[in-house]
């Protein structure tokens, strides 16, 4: 998606269909009767209509339709060992941190854990492993006494259930995050939309 921000592409995925002049010509030929449009007229109309359709579909699907409702979450005072254990057991790379009243206080992801290890220049999981192999030292001592509230990213980016699929794609891409908690009018956690949830909804198939 190198050519972002062209007309009709503001939702950030490729929409150009590879419709050749020959395809259109043959299609026009298969219709009886004289059509007083050129093949190019048709392509123009089709391109614009296709953009509109994509736009309509991606705006009609909302966060509440695709979110996971059984969200694994932790509290501020959950120890990091427990947070890591929870994430590992559920096979997830991030969890929301919720207040006792259900409000979303923040989000913890692998990135926050890595950042909490306080190793300059290390940003990824492989970075941690490499550092560990090089130094042959224990990196986790400083983590043992800390809790979720200490390392979470806060305030969290959250969205209401009415957020459209198009906006979700935009938020996930622009903020470079992998999941976004969905909250109700009171700011309480009701679900979570991950990149996988967005991917799973293969809206493009519906168009063609």
């Amino acid at each position, binding site marked *: 998606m190198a050519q972002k921000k062209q007309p009709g592409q503001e939702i950030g995925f490729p929409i150009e269909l590879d419709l050749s*002049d020959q395809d259109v*010509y043959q299609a*026009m*030929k298969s219709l*009886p*009767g*004289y*059509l*007083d*449009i*050129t*093949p*190019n*007229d048709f392509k123009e109309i089709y391109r614009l209509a296709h953009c509109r359709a994509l736009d309509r579909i991606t705006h009609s699907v909302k966060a509440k339709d695709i979110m996971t409702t059984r969200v694994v979450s932790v509290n501020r005072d959950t120890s990091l060992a427990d947070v890591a254990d929870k994430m590992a057991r559920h096979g997830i790379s991030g969890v929301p941190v919720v207040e006792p009243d259900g409000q979303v206080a923040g989000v913890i992801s692998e990135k926050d854990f890595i950042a909490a290890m306080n190793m300059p220049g290390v940003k990824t999981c492989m970075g941690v492993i490499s550092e560990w192999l090089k130094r042959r030292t224990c990196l986790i001592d400083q983590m043992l006494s800390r809790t979720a509230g200490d390392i979470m990213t806060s305030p969290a980016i959250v969205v209401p259930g009415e957020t459209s699929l198009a906006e979700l794609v935009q938020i996930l891409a622009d903020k470079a995050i992998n999941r976004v908690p969905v909250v109700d009018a009171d700011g309480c956690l009701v679900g979570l939309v991950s990149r996988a949830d967005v991917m799973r909804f293969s809206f493009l198939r519906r168009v063609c």
Partner: protein
Amino acid sequence: MLSYFVKMKGITQSPPAVGLSEVAWSWVGAFLGIAAVAYINDFVLAGTGLIIVVGSFGSSAVLIYGAVKSPLAQPRNLIGGHLISALIGVASYQMLATHLWLAAAIGVATSIALMHMTKTLHPPAGATALIAIIGDKKIHDLGYMYVIMPIGAGVLVMLLIALLVNNIPKTRRYPEYWF
């Protein structure tokens, strides 16, 4: 500046040719449509001083019997376009009879503008406006009657034939819309 001239190259290919049956039905429709108005003109109206056929009907026949799907060929455009242009044509002639060239230019141009604004664009109607202005004495003497007869009546006869003929073949239908 270069892009201005590049535009003159064109950007796409011409639409495909139609099949033989389309050619045949276009012929039949046009034959019957023009036969109807021409016959009425020559025999029914003989001696009354009235006419029901003008040159622009030939080009209307191209559209309503030869390009039946075209928006330009739909009843709204056929009737609306001819009536509006006939009216503008007569008015232009009556107001500017002493400057025929100007009356002709204003009549045709204004007809196109009004047809656009009323969604009734019908190319042959441009000729209808022009005929009212540069036509012979017989046409000029009709005055605003020109709008009703030959134009209004003639167009209705041609439309009737289009409805009857264009809906016979399975592969054709007419109109696409009325209004």
